[in-house]
Each structure stands twice: as structure tokens, then as C-alpha cells.
């Protein structure tokens, strides 16, 4: 799992106030790391960067140093640039950050780009239910509560809840009546054994 590319943000701005503030806000985004630079060429101080990068800087700064940044960063991941507008502009655009954007909007715009980077390996979760999960499902479709199921299986309620969570994750079904439907369609239970009027 160690070869999943990381997603980081590099913020470049000569002002410490803007740099610090923006980095603090971007901690709420999906970036795994945020690197602060006063000037684009300071990227040379970071020889071991890898993964995907979103670079946020003023249009002038990007013009000056985007070629250099691309050279340094583009070995194994993607690089995307985003303009940082420092004056108030009324038109909304997702392609640039504005100094006056709300924190939520800033993180949203950053996430849009971070999410467009190739996903870290798709999760290949096992979708087969275990025997224990089947048992829990069977009891669930009979209308038993978590506590009652726990008592019958001699486990804690906490364990039952965790089984239910796993069943939901594997099947994609969340509601109790949805699980009953699933159990019938998968022939885990017989439709005649349960009171469908009550349970679905």
C-alpha cells in the first residue's frame, strides 16, 4: 500500500499573513500535506517531493516559476496550478482562489482539483458476507433488536453493531427493511418465514 501517490498542496505567496492563513484553511481540504513557500524557486529546497500537487500562487508568480515547478515535481505525479487573486473580484469562478473566499469555498475549490487526480488504488473490499454476518442478518430480518441479537449470539451489542456496519458496507444496503429485501433476494432467508407486512 506504500506506493499510493500522496496529494499535496503548495502555496506560494510572499506575505506571511496570507501564506499562514491560507495554509491553515487548507488543512480542512483533502490534501495530505501543505507546503508553504515565499517564492516559487524555493521549491529547489525540497528535493524529495513526490505524488500529485496542487500549486496555488498569484498569476505573476506562476508565470515566473511554473516551468521550474513542473520540472521538479512532474516525475511521478500530476501538477495543477491555481491562481490566487488578491483583490476582490465579484465573479465566482472555481478556477481561481480569491482572498475573500469563505474557508468552505476555498476547501471546496481545492478538493475539486485534488479529486481530479488519479485515485489511489481502488479499494477492493470483499463483498461476500461471513457466516457470522449472515447469522446477524438472519436475526435482523426477524425483527430482533441489536441487544436481542447480541444475547442470542453471546456477543456484545457493540459487536453486533460492527457486524451490521460491515453488512452495509459489503452490500450497499443501509436500512433494516432494505436488508430484509436483500436477504430474501439472496435466498439467505425464506420469504414465508418473515412477516413482510411488518418488516418491509
Amino acid at each position: 500500500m506504500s506506493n499510493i501517490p500522496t496529494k499535496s498542496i503548495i502555496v506560494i505567496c510572499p506575505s506571511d499573513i496570507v501564506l499562514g492563513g491560507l495554509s491553515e484553511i487548507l488543512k480542512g481540504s483533502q490534501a495530505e500535506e501543505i507546503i508553504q513557500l515565499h517564492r516559487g524557486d524555493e521549491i529547489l529546497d525540497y528535493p524529495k517531493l513526490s505524488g500529485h500537487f496542487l500549486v496555488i500562487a498569484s498569476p505573476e508568480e506562476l508565470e515566473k516559476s511554473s516551468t521550474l515547478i513542473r520540472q521538479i515535481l512532474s516525475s511521478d505525479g500530476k501538477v495543477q496550478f491555481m491562481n490566487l487573486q488578491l483583490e476582490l473580484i465579484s465573479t465566482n469562478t472555481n478556477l481561481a482562489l480569491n482572498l475573500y473566499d469563505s474557508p468552505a469555498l476555498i476547501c471546496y475549490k481545492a478538493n475539486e482539483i485534488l479529486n481530479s487526480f488519479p485515485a489511489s488504488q481502488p479499494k477492493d473490499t470483499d463483498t461476500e458476507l461471513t457466516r457470522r454476518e449472515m447469522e446477524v442478518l438472519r436475526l435482523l430480518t426477524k425483527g430482533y433488536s441489536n441487544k436481542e441479537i447480541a444475547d442470542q449470539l453471546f456477543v456484545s451489542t457493540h459487536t453486533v453493531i460492527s457486524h451490521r456496519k460491515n453488512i452495509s458496507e459489503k452490500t450497499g444496503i443501509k436500512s433494516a427493511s432494505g436488508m430484509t429485501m436483500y436477504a430474501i433476494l439472496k435466498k439467505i432467508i425464506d420469504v414465508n418465514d418473515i412477516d413482510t407486512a411488518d418488516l418491509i
Partner: protein
Amino acid sequence: MELFNENNKLASVIHKDHSLLPVINRLGIKLGFGDKTIQNICEEKGIDLNFFVETINVFHYEAYFPEKRLLDFSVSMVIEYLLKTHKYYIEYLIPENDRLIELFLMASPDESAENDLVRRFYTKFKEEFVIHMNFEERVMFPYILELNDALVNPVAYEAFHQKYPGYSIEGYEKEHSNMDDKMDDLKNIIIKYLPPNYDQNRGNAFLFNLFMFEKDLKNHSRIEDHILIPKVKQLEKVLLSHE
């Protein structure tokens, strides 16, 4: 992806995201607007421009939710929008769903046991949903509007206090996630688990409608949970401070 703004032509907005069609209807706009911008149209129809732009953006991008700006809108404006959404569900989307699910289930007559289950699941979901909307329209929205009135009108203030001595929206809040879950489950059951002995086109038509319904419903819940309810709590605090 770009957010929409007041200078965009409404026609090009619709070309970019046609799922906004029912949303602009609810906001009071019918088609046939030529090349007018959002601003032109809102001015013409007397629609609050900011509310229009924010509403379509919130609907268009799930991740966009400028909470602070949204909290500026009046509760009556938000409720009017929500009521129009209910009307759209009751008068169009639900009957359309009913029609499409029947066409879909009728086209697979051999699997009557499975069909019965799907029908029952859907019917139960629908009933719960209608009860939920009725509750909001008959109990929750009137409470909010009366609360809003009480803040500006001394007569309404007295009436409000008599009617709701220990007022708090918290007693009225209902879980939305439950309905979202069931909607999701129904989609998953058809996509993943129902034996595919049915007419695929009919199945798809039902699913298309369900996806549309789901998107609309999620957006509706978001507006209630993150704009309306926080706003009401704010108003309740203001009222409390007057006492």
C-alpha cells in the same frame, strides 16, 4: 468546474446542467427566455437575484455550500422554495415514479414474488415520505413562520407565546437520513440484486427517475438541515433575548 453567476445566460446554464430545469421552475421561471442573463430574468420577474444564484449553485455542485451567505436569506423565502419543492414531488415526481415502477414491474410478470417485494418497499418508502412532508407543511413550517412574525409584530408575539409556551424547533426536527438511506437501498437492490428478468429499458427508465428524485431530495434535505434549522435556532435565540 465553474460556478454560475448573474451574468451567465440562463439558456447556457441549462445546457450545462439540465437537472436544474425543475429548480428554475420552482424559483418562478418558465422556459422561452431567449438569451437573457440570470440578472435580466430575475429583475423582470422580481426574483431575489442572490437567492436564485446561490440556489442553483448549491443544487449544481454538491460540495458547494456557502453557509454564511445562505443564512442571510429570509425564512419565508426559504420556506416558499421548500413548499414549491414539495408540490413538485407530490404533483409530479411521485406520480411519475409510481407510473414508471408499475411499467417496470409489469414487464417482468414471471417474478411476481420479487416484484411484490420491490413494490412493497417502494410503497412504504413513499408513505413515509408523504407523512414527513405533511408534518413539515402542517406543523413545522407554520411554527417557523409564526416565530418569524413574532419578532416583528407585537400582536403576533403574544399569540405565538400563547400557542407555543415552551417553543423550540428541536422538538420538530426529523431525521432526513432515514429516507435518503431507503432511496439508496432501493436503487442498490435493483442495480445489484434483483434478478434481471425484466425489460431493461423499463428498469432504466425507473432508475433514471429515481436518480433524479434522489438528487433533488438530497438537496432539499441539505437546505432544511443546514439553512432553515440553523436560522430558526437563531430566531429563537433573538426572541428569547427579548423576554
